[in-house]
C-alpha cells in the first residue's frame, strides 16, 4: 500500500502543494487531475523525493518510499527530454535495468530478454535501432512506457502520458495500464485530458488552485 500523509512542498517561497493525503491499494489505477499549475507534476515528484518536501511522509509497505526507489518506475513529461540526444530506442529501454544490473556491469542476456519483451508489449520492437529523434510523439511515449515496464517496478508514476499522442499509442497505453493493474501494481497518472478513458480509473485525485 502507498500512503501519502500531509505532503507539502514549497517552491521558491511559494507553497506548491499543501497537506495532500491519500492511500492507494495494490491493483489500483489513480488519476491525478487538476488545472494547469495545480501541482500535478510537483505531487509526483514530491512523492519520489525529487523536490524538497516542506512537510509530510510518503510510505510504501510501511517503509519510507525514498529508501526503496528501485520499486518505482517514473515516466517524465515529454518536454523534459531532449529528443535530439544521440541514442536509440533499444538503449533507452536498456537504461531501465541500470539499478538492477549494479555498478560496473554491462547488460546481460537476461537484461536483453526483458528489454525485448517490454518493446514487444508496446509494439516498438521493430523500431529498436531507430534514433529516438526519428520517432513520432506517440512512438516516443511508447518507448518510455517500455522503459517503465522493463524496470519491473511495483509502483508506476506517469506524468502527463497522454499529451500529444496518437490513437494507437493511447490504446496501447490503456491496455498496458490494465495489465499492470491486474497484476497488482499501483499506478498514479497525472493528466489534464482524460476523455473517454476516465471509466478505467479506480479513483480520481483532484488538485485545485487556491
Amino acid at each position, binding site marked *: 500500500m502507498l500512503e501519502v500523509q500531509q505532503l507539502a512542498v514549497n517552491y521558491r517561497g511559494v507553497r506548491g502543494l499543501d497537506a495532500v493525503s491519500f492511500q492507494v491499494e495494490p491493483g489500483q489505477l489513480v488519476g491525478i487531475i487538476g488545472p494547469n499549475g495545480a501541482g500535478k507534476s510537483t505531487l509526483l515528484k514530491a512523492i519520489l523525493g525529487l523536490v524538497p518536501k516542506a512537510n509530510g511522509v510518503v510510505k510504501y509497505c510501511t517503509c519510507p518510499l525514498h529508501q526503496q526507489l528501485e520499486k518505482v518506475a517514473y515516466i517524465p513529461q515529454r518536454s523534459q527530454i531532449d529528443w535530439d540526444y544521440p541514442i536509440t530506442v533499444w538503449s533507452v529501454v536498456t537504461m531501465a535495468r*541500470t539499478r538492477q544490473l549494479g555498478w560496473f556491469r554491462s547488460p546481460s542476456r537476461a537484461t536483453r530478454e526483458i528489454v525485448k519483451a517490454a518493446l514487444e508489449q508496446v509494439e516498438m520492437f521493430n523500431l529498436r535501432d531507430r534514433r529516438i529523434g526519428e520517432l513520432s510523439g506517440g512512438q516516443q511515449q511508447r518507448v518510455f512506457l517500455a522503459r517503465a515496464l522493463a524496470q519491473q517496478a511495483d509502483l508506476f508514476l506517469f506524468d502527463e502520458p497522454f499529451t500529444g499522442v496518437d490513437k494507437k499509442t493511447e490504446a496501447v497505453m490503456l491496455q498496458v495500464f490494465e495489465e499492470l493493474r491486474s497484476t497488482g501494481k499501483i499506478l498514479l497518472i497525472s493528466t489534464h485530458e482524460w476523455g473517454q478513458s476516465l471509466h478505467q480509473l479506480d479513483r480520481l485525485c483532484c488538485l485545485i488552485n487556491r
Partner: protein
Amino acid sequence: MLNSLMFDLLFAPLDYEFMRNAIAIGLIVGVLCPVVGSYLIVQRMALLGDVIAHCVLPGLSISFFLGIDILIGAFGSGILGAFLIAWIRSQSRVKVDSAMALTFSTFFALGVLLITVLRNRLDLDSFLFGDILGVTPTDIGRSLMITIVILLAVKLFYKEILFYTFDKTGAQAIGLPTNAIYFGFMAAITLTIIASMQAVGVILVISMLVGPALTAYLLVKELHQMMLLGAAIGMFASVTGIYISYYYNVPSGPAIVLVSSSLFLLALLLSPSQGILTRSASDRLSQLRLNRSKPD
C-alpha cells in the same frame, strides 16, 4: 617516387624531439577532448568548457608562486569556478549564462592580477594560445595519466552517466547519485582542460572539446559511437594541424582548431543523414517511397 616523397613529408619532422612530443600530446588531447566534449554537447553545456578553461588561471598562478604542481592549483580553481556558477544558480533567479559570464571574467581578471602581484614567470601568451612545440615529457606524462583516469571512469560508469545526461529527473527517480555524477563530470572537464592547455591553450581548448565530437554527432546514432568517431577525428585533426604548422610555419594551436572546424563543415554539408547538401536528396527519396506506399 611519389611514395618516397610522402614518406619523407610524414617522417622527416619526426627526427626532431619537439615534433615527437608535440604529436604525442596532440594524440592524447585528440582522444580525451572529444570523449568529455560529447557529454558537454548532449547536455547543452558546451560553453561550460570555455568557462572552466578561463577559471583555472588564478590556480595556475598560485601553483607557480608556491612551487607546487600546476595540476593541483588549476584543478582547485577550475572546480571552484564551476561550483560558484551552480551555487549562484541555485540561490537566485540568475540564469546560467549570466552566472557563467560573470564568474569566468572575474576568475580571469583575478588570475591576470595574481600573475603581476605574485611576480610569476607564467607566460600568459602560451597559457592562452598553447605552446605545443614546448611540451616536455612531464607534460606528456601528466596528460596521459589524466586521460587514462578519465577514459577508465567513462568506461566503468558509462550506463549511469548515460542515464544521467539523458534524463536527469529519471536518474534521480531511480536513486542514482546524481550529485556525485555532477561533481565527477565537473572534475573531468577541469582535468581535460589542464591536460589540453599546453597543446592548444585555454582560448582554443573549447574547439577541441566541441569540434570533433560535434562532427561525429552528425554522422552517428549513439553516444558511444559519437565518442569513438570523435576521438578518431580529434587525433586526425591534431596530427594534421601539427604538420601544417611545421611545413607552413604557422602557430600550431590555431592550425589544429581550423582543421577540426573544416572537418565539421564538411560533415555539416555532406553527412548522409543530416548534411545540408545531401539531406534534401534523401528527403526527396523517402518522400517518393512514402507516396508509392500509399494505397490511394
